[in-house]
Each structure stands twice: as structure tokens, then as C-alpha cells.
């Protein structure tokens, strides 16, 4: 009997949760304002843009988004997920938007939309200090074992330009869930070269030690954008407006000074 | 002559290609104590289990107090089994319950008796089989003979119209057989209607008023114990009974030193 009761109880709980669907607002932005909260996805393992310090989420993207939400007049709810699930998360509506050091890419554009750029990022190639090879141009990476974070634009660049064209064997490209994992393997010598965004590379070089950046410049990256659902013009317009405001006010420059220029 | 308590007509049971028994008919009257004997594997246990519908006979009919229990529209199986008590060779007490709870559970959960009333009745039955002082023990803490006596009390508590015993002492150590047989003899004397499958010839001669010899799935002979022991119609009957009696006698001689 007790078992039956429990089963029914569980069923009722599930049904209750299911029925808690909100009323249909006009569009996504309306829905967010109505709910009073925006759910933003990020992968808080990417210093200096989003990471955890003293139990709090901190970083360039974190502070930027916090300010944006404030100006939108809604509360900010962070949803932390592995980087490669974020795009899917926006697609499926699990999160309203995502800020996580996203570069614009055509592939991503097919399934989501982007705000205007809030920052310009360079790419970087990092090696260990004891590296004895030559590295003058990005294509030199083809001669070594290269590590990269999975699902990033760098991942795309290496795959399309070096592996698919045959310049580099597939087996020499190592993909990782997080960029700090790449750096650790770089330091231990399991790989020779790391390709990533420039600012995180500098953070890792400083924090880990024993590494150095051998090349940086705009290759795949360039602009950082916030990701919003495909076709969501209202949300994009709202965020674009605020980003422009923050740029004009010098807020973004302050963030750069705080997190990046070191 | 009032109607018989239990009647079976043309019961047949096969298992694949094997015929366990064929066309068995018998009738059990009130206060009868019937003993069924025969070589092992002649379907005696299966027959008993068919009588209380635990096993379904392939064909044939069974009546309990005039109601055909093999007809599902006349009475539900579970209901019928409340009125037929069964005692198994392996006792089959419920391991997670004390002796008292074993006897009580049929009363509270099947007969829906209030707890106090059930407890009193259960204590009575345990008293009847001489185990009132073991009421709080678990089956694992009881000897084989004690377990079987609790099993008998459990069956009796349901106040059945007839009690079926399936080789009740076959799994017991020799020293423990006596206490169980004593209970059974007492029951017979008190007028309980009983059908007993056993090898215990002493029991048969003392309290049975009818005896059935089964072999190869058929009833070979039927009559009073005296009939079968002194004036058997078939040589086979004589052979079997005297062999058993010889073993029994030898056993008795061994026990008596």
C-alpha cells in the first residue's frame, strides 16, 4: 500500500511540474520581461572571461552580462554547462541566451543568432618553454601535436585547414572539453602546441607557468558575441542597444582594464 | 447419510507426454480419515494439490460441500482454499513471521478478523498442537517437528472442512515424527475430515477408516486398513504394504533399541 501511495505521489509531483507552463507572451523578450528573469548559459571554466573564484562566478563576460541584465530590468540566472552544450541549450530553449567567449562562425549562425560584438579577441598558439621547434606562421602547427578545446572556432580552423586538407594527420589533433585541460597536457608534454583564444592563453601562461605564447593575431576569432535564439530579433535588438550604450560609456574599457590588460 | 465433504470425479493430469494420474475418482465423507499410499512418483502429491486447486487438473471435476469448485463461476479459487487446509512435506512456514504470526496471518489478512480476536484464536490453535510456549519464535528457531506442528495449527486456524496432508513426516528426523503423528491422531479422533498421503503404516492402522493404494497413476485398491493389510485383492498391494511395514517395524525395533 505504501508503495502504491508513493508511486502516485511521485506521479502527481511530475504532473504538477509539467503543468507549470507559463501563459503565451508575444515574443521571447516579452516572455523574459514577464518572468522577470533571464536564464543565461555559460561555461564557467574559462578565465578571464567566466570562471569561479572564492565560490563566486567572476570574469569579463560575467560582469558584462550582469550589467546588461540590470539594464534590461530583469534578474540574471546563470546556468553553467559544458561549453559544447551551450549552443544546443539555446536552440532548445533551455536557456534564453549564452555568453561564453563565443566567436561568430557561419556554422553557428545556421542554428542561432548573434548580437553585435562586445569585444575583439585574437587567436594564439602556445607552447611549453622548452619547445625546440619552429613556429612562425599558424600553418606551422601542422608539424606538431596540437591540442584544442572541442567545438571552438579554433577547432574548426584546425580541422578544415590542416586536417581535411591533409597537411596534418587526424591523429595529431587532440580535442578537450576544457581549455585548462589542453594547457595541462601542453605542460606535461603530451602535446606540443595549444591553439586557443589569446586572453585565456595569457591567463593560463601566467597561472601555470612553463609556457609561452609563440604567435597571436586575428585568425578565426575576432569578435566576441552573445548568442541568442535563431530569428529572435527582439532580444537581439535589445541587447545590441545595451552593448552599444556600454561601449559608449566606457564600461567595456573598464572591464578590459580589469580582466585583460595585464 | 449426509453428502460427502469432498468429491473428485475422473481427475486426469498429464505433464507433457507423462500421465501423472488418469481418471481418479474418490469421495471423502465427514469425519473420514483416509490414508493414501503408494510408490513414490505415482502422483499422490499432485493429486492432493489438484484437490485444493493449487494445480489445475487437465480434466475432471471436484465438489466441496456440493459446490463444484472446478467451475470458476461457482466459487473463486482463493475462497475455496480457505475451506481446504493443507500441510506440506517441507512445512513451508513463512520465514519472516513468528509462529503466532504464521497462524494469525490467514485470519487477519484473508478472513479480515480483528487483531485481538485473531490472536486469541491463533493461541488456541497453538495450544492445540502443544506449542503455546513457542509462539514468539521464528521458523528458523524451531525444530522440524515443531515447524510442522505450527504448520498444522496454521491450517487449522482457517477452520477448514477438510485437511490435506502431503507426506507430513517425510522430511523429519525420526525422533521428531512422533510428535507430529500424535497431533494428527488427536485430530482424527476429534473428528476432523482428513486425507493423508504418508508412509506411516502405524498411523494408518490406528486411526484411518479408509485406505487407498495408488500405483502408476491409478487407484489400484481401496478399503479399510484391515482390508488392505489382511485381505488385499492384489498381490502388488500386499507386496508394497508388507515391505513398508517391514521397514517400519525395523525402524520401530531400532528406535526401541
Amino acid at each position: 500500500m505504501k508503495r502504491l501511495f508513493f508511486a502516485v505521489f511521485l506521479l502527481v509531483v511530475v504532473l504538477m511540474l509539467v503543468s507549470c507552463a507559463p501563459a503565451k507572451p508575444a515574443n521571447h523578450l516579452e516572455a523574459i520581461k514577464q518572468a522577470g528573469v533571464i536564464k543565461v548559459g555559460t561555461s564557467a571554466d574559462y578565465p578571464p572571461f567566466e570562471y569561479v573564484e572564492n565560490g563566486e562566478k567572476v570574469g569579463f563576460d560575467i560582469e558584462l552580462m550582469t550589467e546588461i541584465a540590470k539594464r534590461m530590468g530583469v534578474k540574471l540566472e546563470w546556468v553553467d554547462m559544458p561549453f559544447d552544450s551551450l549552443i544546443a541549450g539555446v536552440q532548445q530553449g533551455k536557456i534564453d541566451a549564452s555568453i561564453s567567449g563565443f566567436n561568430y562562425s557561419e556554422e553557428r549562425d545556421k542554428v542561432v543568432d548573434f548580437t553585435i560584438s562586445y569585444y575583439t579577441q585574437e587567436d594564439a598558439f602556445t607552447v611549453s618553454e622548452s619547445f625546440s621547434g619552429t613556429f612562425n606562421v599558424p600553418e606551422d602547427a601542422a608539424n606538431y601535436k596540437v591540442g584544442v578545446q572541442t567545438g571552438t572556432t579554433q577547432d574548426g580552423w584546425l580541422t578544415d585547414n590542416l586536417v581535411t586538407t591533409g597537411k596534418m594527420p587526424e591523429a595529431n589533433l587532440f580535442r578537450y572539453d576544457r581549455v585548462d585541460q589542453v594547457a595541462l597536457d601542453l605542460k606535461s608534454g603530451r602535446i606540443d602546441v595549444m591553439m586557443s583564444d589569446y586572453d585565456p592563453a595569457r591567463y593560463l601562461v601566467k597561472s601555470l607557468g612553463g609556457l609561452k605564447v609563440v604567435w597571436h593575431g586575428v585568425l578565426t576569432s575576432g569578435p566576441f558575441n552573445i548568442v541568442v535564439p535563431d530569428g529572435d530579433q527582439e532580444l537581439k535588438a535589445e541587447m545590441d542597444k545595451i552593448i552599444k550604450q556600454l561601449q559608449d560609456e566606457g564600461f567595456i574599457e573598464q572591464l578590459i582594464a580589469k580582466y585583460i590588460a595585464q | 447419510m449426509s453428502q460427502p465433504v469432498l468429491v473428485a470425479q475422473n481427475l486426469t493430469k498429464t505433464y507433457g507426454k507423462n500421465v501423472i494420474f488418469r481418471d481418479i475418482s474418490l469421495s471423502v465423507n465427514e469425519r473420514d480419515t483416509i490414508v493414501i499410499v503408494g510408490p513414490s512418483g505415482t502422483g499422490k502429491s499432485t493429486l492432493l494439490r489438484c484437490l485444493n486447486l493449487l494445480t489445475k487438473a487437465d480434466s475432471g471435476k471436484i465438489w466441496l460441500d456440493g459446490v463444484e469448485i472446478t467451475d470458476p463461476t461457482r466459487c473463486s479459487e482463493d475462497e475455496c482454499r480457505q475451506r481446504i487446509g493443507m500441510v506440506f512435506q517441507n512445512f513451508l512456514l513463512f520465514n519472516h513471521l513468528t509462529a503466532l504470526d504464521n497462524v494469525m496471518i490467514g485470519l487477519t489478512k484473508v478472513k479480515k478478523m480483528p487483531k485481538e480476536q485473531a490472536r486469541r484464536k491463533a493461541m488456541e490453535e497453538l495450544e492445540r498442537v502443544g506449542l503455546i510456549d513457542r509462539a514468539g519464535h521464528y521458523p528458523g528457531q524451531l525444530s522440524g517437528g515443531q515447524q510442522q506442528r505450527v504448520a498444522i495449527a496454521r491450517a487449522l486456524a482457517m477452520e477448514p472442512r477438510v485437511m490435506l496432508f502431503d507426506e507430513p513426516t517425510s522430511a523429519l528426523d525420526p525422533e521428531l515424527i512422533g510428535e507430529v503423528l500424535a497431533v494428527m491422531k488427536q485430530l482424527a479422533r476429534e473428528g476432523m475430515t482428513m486425507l493423508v498421503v504418508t508412509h506411516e503404516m502405524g498411523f494408518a492402522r490406528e486411526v484411518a477408516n479408509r485406505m487407498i493404494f495408488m500405483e502408476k497413476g491409478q487407484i489400484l485398491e481401496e478399503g479399510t486398513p484391515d482390508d488392505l493389510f489382511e485381505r488385499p485383492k492384489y498381490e502388488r498391494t500386499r507386496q508394497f504394504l508388507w515391505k513398508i511395514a517391514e521397514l517400519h517395524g525395523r525402524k520401530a525395533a531400532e528406535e526401541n533399541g
Partner: protein
Amino acid sequence: MLIEFFRYIAAGTATTLAVTLVALPLGLVIGLTFALAHVYGGKVLTQVMRLYSTLMRGMPPILLLFILYFIISGSINLSPFWAGSIALGVVSSAYQLEILRGAILSVGGEQMMAARAIGMSRLKAIRYIILPQALRMAIPPWSNEASIVLKDSSLVYALGVAEILRRAQQLSATTQQPFMAFGTAALIYFILVFTANRLLDYVSQRTRIPANPLG
């Protein structure tokens, strides 16, 4: 330094426990129902249950977790926590089905026969005679499954649920001290699993049947 690590990662314990406390009972309810269907349900039902068991246990739990997660969250609007926990519960149900089925079978058909002989219906027999014995028997292997679900709860990190493992990953990414971060997480899991096992041992002791011939 270790204290900071510990405090941040340990804060995920509540989530880890919450996931486990949704998944495990759900798995039990489903597993028990299906185990009974398997043993007592007749030919067709038995085959269906066998299929379910083979299918669900035939792939790595994390794979099944993802598949179920996307099925569940695709059709109903649940948070990752609920979708993930429910999915984990369904995964566990197949293993619990086998554990409970084994326990029910070891109680044996004879106990059922004896129960029916005093006029109990099959349902009553299952409820009052078979299950009380079977569930006691199932505690040791079930305790093992409980530990597994507790540890597998870490898999929901991939769905965005901030439990112990995810927090360890974040710390590792910030401090580049993977051994400290993951070591602390491991220590916390160890404490949880150890405690759970002790608890279930205690339950097993308290509910033990004295001198049980079935062991």
C-alpha cells in the same frame, strides 16, 4: 587553500544528494513494478520486461542518460535537474528490476504455494509473504546499486546541473590544480558512499529475520 576548495565543491553536495534522492526511489518504484510483472505477469509481460531490462542495461549509463534526457526534455518543459534526475531514475530502474527479481525468485515459489493454500490471493501473497522476505534479501545488492546511482549522479554535470563534479571542473580550470580539485571531489564522494553503505547495513541488521533458513 584546501579549505576553500573543500567548501566550494562541498556546496554541490546538496545537489548531488537531491539528484540521487529523486533517481533512486523512482528507480525503485519502476524496478519493483516491473520485477513483479516479470515474475508474476504471464508470458507476454515477462517478455516485455526482459526486453526492457536487456535494452536499458545494454549501453553505458551516460549514453542512455543523454537519450532519455533529450526525449524527456523534448516533450515536457522540465528543468535540467528534473529531466536529468528522472532520466537517471529510469536508467537505474533496469538494474533494480534485476536485483528485485533475483530476490523475489530466491524467496521461492513454495512460499507462494503455502500462502495460497490458506486462501490468499496472489496479490495478498506477494504483499504479505513474498515482498517482506524479498526486500530484506535485496538490501545488500540494492545498497550497491544505491552507491552506483550516487556516483552516477555526477553524470548530470553534462546537462548543466551544478553538482560536485562540475564544481571541481570549474576550480580546476581557474587554479590549474586538477589533482587538488578532483581529489577533493573524490574525497567527498567517498564520504557520501561510505555513509550510505553504513546506513543500509544498519537497516539490514535491524530488519534481519532471526535464524532465517533462507539466509
